[in-house]
């Protein structure tokens, strides 16, 4: 008897299935229950929702809060901010929608028990910057998870969702998902009327700076394995802006964030010789991107670009000047607690290297690229906009529904909506949750039906790496080198090398061109074939195998989008060396892709950017 045949199949029926229990998923669960009192709402999570997703470690700031009650900002202002930072290209309809709702989410967080710091003079939330408020967020995720657990009918932890299921009675309609339990090995078939993908973006698709033990200290969590993209791509949902990877300027090695340092502590950067360097590069940036360099605040990618040019000119390392700020004991405490609340590893790096920022100005570095949809970047699925004002060509159904019927998304999954961060992702989950309830209420009879042949075939495919390992391991004496299978880590390192060397990683200074992309895609093609021969010696390695499948599919999408956009829109994120300038005449647009689930062929197109805010 083959190994996979001994795996039990567990069926879970629901009205609304939420995939991923991070901030997007928790918001989706909460809102689905609020509006759908009689509906069955199921959350399925790869880890444990108590500490899962990008906020597992905690956060020290909420980076998306308007403060409309104090007239601090209006939603329009946030749209202008995000549009400016992304060099003109955001889904303004979706961004406005998050911004108009986000304050209510933050007020709920405070009511639930999240400690939000207060400005003692005004009594308002303590501002770190125009959009950011400061929190004691060690338990941010457990608090939000508590709300989600109360809302959901059932939460299934430790189940890795590998594929979505499509309706057999109607084309292009979702019917559920399949996955496996990383604990007992059972196969799960989730049958649902609506599915909300709220999975994570992508770390570890580009080679990280540290490749030994430290490879786990990526900026974005190592468990963010691109399921946010792979699940929709597999079923033919259209994706947008997948070329818009992000590179972060961070404290060296620990990737400690710089936001509080710049905004609240008023620290600043200088080159190795104590000079301010950003102004040095003004003229050359203007030649590349024109007037965008004059926008305020200076877009994140352009500041990266100046940093990178300065390093290339031989005037690194770049340091953050902390000595002055840290002379103030309050600021010193904020500086340390900022890391302890969300990037503990940075505190460890400094402790280990005797770096006390009171006495030493610490080094900064530019990270490897990441693909995600909630920070200063907006890769993700192409989604329908809010019913009350979205332009006609941005509306084909329910708010946050993708181009597959009944398939919704939130957080990293949804494209075009930069700068949503934790609170905006939760809010987008709420929007998607309410929409999914509407969709299910309108459905009436004729609920989707899963196809037994489809999930049985997937069951065989899902466990294949264990079968492959079991057979192949007897061929060799011992060790990790087999002619018959690749271990997941081996496939992952090949992927990271291809993406790094051909698609704009650190080893080429984030540079690529058409011939490099062509060669990279040839190698990705072979990797795609080879990952049909992954070997997994345990359920844990089976999880790694499917994470790799998701990363490879998302990477292919990134490479194709990068090839399609023949300009350098975001210097400092990546460079098309064969099209080094920003080209608004031809590329002031979104890039869209669709992979045909039947043939695996990709089709690319442009979609207009509608500026609905002045």
């Amino acid at each position: 008897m083959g190994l996979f045949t001994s795996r039990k199949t567990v069926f879970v029926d629901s009205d609304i299935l939420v995939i991923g229990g991070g901030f997007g998923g928790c918001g989706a669960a909460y809102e689905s229950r609020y509006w759908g009192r009689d509906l069955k709402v199921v959350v399925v999570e790869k880890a444990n929702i108590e500490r899962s997703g990008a906020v597992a470690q905690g956060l020290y700031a909420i980076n998306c809060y308007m403060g409309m009650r104090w007239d601090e900002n209006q939603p329009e202002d946030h749209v202008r901010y995000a549009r400016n930072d992304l060099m003109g290209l955001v889904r303004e309809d979706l961004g406005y929608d998050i911004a108009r709702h986000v304050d209510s989410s933050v007020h709920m967080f405070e009511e639930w028990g999240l400690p939000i710091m207060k400005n003692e003079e005004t009594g308002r939330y303590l501002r770190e910057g125009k959009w950011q408020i400061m929190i004691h967020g060690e338990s941010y995720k457990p608090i939000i998870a508590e709300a989600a657990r109360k809302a959901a009918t059932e939460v299934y932890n430790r189940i890795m969702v590998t594929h979505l299921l499509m309706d057999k009675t109607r084309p292009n309609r979702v019917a559920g998902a399949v996955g496996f339990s990383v604990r007992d090995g059972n196969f799960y078939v989730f049958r649902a009327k609506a599915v909300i993908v709220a999975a994570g973006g992508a770390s570890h698709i580009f080679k990280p700076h540290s490749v030994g033990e430290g490879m786990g200290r990526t900026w974005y969590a190592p468990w963010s394995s691109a399921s946010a993209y792979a699940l929709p791509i597999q079923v033919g949902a259209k994706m947008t802006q997948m070329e818009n990877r992000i590179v972060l300027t961070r404290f060296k090695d620990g990737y400690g964030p710089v936001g509080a340092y710049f905004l609240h502590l008023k620290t600043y950067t200088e080159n190795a010789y104590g000079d301010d360097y950003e102004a040095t590069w003004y003229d050359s940036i203007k030649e590349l991107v024109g007037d965008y360099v004059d926008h305020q605040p200076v877009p994140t990618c352009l500041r990266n670009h100046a940093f990178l040019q300065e390093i290339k000119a031989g005037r690194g390392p770049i340091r953050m000047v902390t000595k002055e700020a840290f002379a103030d004991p309050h600021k010193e405490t904020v500086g340390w607690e900022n890391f302890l609340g969300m990037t503990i590893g940075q505190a460890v790096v400094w402790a280990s290297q005797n770096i006390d920022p009171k006495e030493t100005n610490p080094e900064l570095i530019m990270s490897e690229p990441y693909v995600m949809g909630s920070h200063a970047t907006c890769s993700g699925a192409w989604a329908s906009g809010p019913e009350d004002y979205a332009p006609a060509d941005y509306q084909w159904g329910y708010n946050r529904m993708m181009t597959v019927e009944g398939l919704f998304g939130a957080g990293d999954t949804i494209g075009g909506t930069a700068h949503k961060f934790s609170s905006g992702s939760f809010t987008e989950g709420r929007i998607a949750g309410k929409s999914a309830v509407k969709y299910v209420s309108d459905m009436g009879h004729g609920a989707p039906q899963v196809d037994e042949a489809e999930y049985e075939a997937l069951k065989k495919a899902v466990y294949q790496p264990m079968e492959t390992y079991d057979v192949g391991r007897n061929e060799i004496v011992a060790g990790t080198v087999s002619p018959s299978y690749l271990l997941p880590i081996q496939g992952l390192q090949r992927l990271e090398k291809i993406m790094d060397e051909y698609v704009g990683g650190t080893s080429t200074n984030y540079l690529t061109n058409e011939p490099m992309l062509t060669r990279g895609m040839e190698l990705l093609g072979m990797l795609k074939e080879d990952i049909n021969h992954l070997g997994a010696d345990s359920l844990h390695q089976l999880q790694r195998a499917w994470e790799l499948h998701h990363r490879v599919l998302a990477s292919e999408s990134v490479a194709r989008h990068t090839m399609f956009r023949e300009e350098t829109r975001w210097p400092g994120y990546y460079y098309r060396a064969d099209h080094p300038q920003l080209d608004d005449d031809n590329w002031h647009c979104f890039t869209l892709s669709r992979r045909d689930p039947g043939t695996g062929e990709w089709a690319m197109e442009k979609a207009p950017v509608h500026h609905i805010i002045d």
Partner: protein
Amino acid sequence: MPTFVYMTRCDGCGQCVDICPSDIMHIDPIYRRAYNIEPNMCWECYACVKACPQHAIDVRGYADFAPLGHSVRVRREEEKGTVSWKIKFRDGREKNFVSPIRTTPWGSIKSPADYDRPSQDALKAQELSHEPEKLHIDALPALPPQ
């Protein structure tokens, strides 16, 4: 900094296994105690360190770039509502920090189903749960139809 587990403190309860977001804390089949099976997939998030009732889990900075001799220890106390940190530098200097983690009792969040059932008309409108009240402004902002 990947985690490691002290042999004499771990009793094999499995709380770290249950919480680890990366699924890398596993029980060793021979010693029946936990260990980190995949240090290069550890984000040093400290979820396991905080969850360990025996304080058996510690971290040693990533060998790639962290010289030895440091420690960053944590104690998370839900009843007190605090998290306490002790940072020890390689050269022996120490820093201590304490922060609040929650202002309400654990388990006190109300289910959304405990609020009045919303109307069908409200379902069709743009307001989300508890809006506009929870926005603390008069009405949900909107743009004119395009």
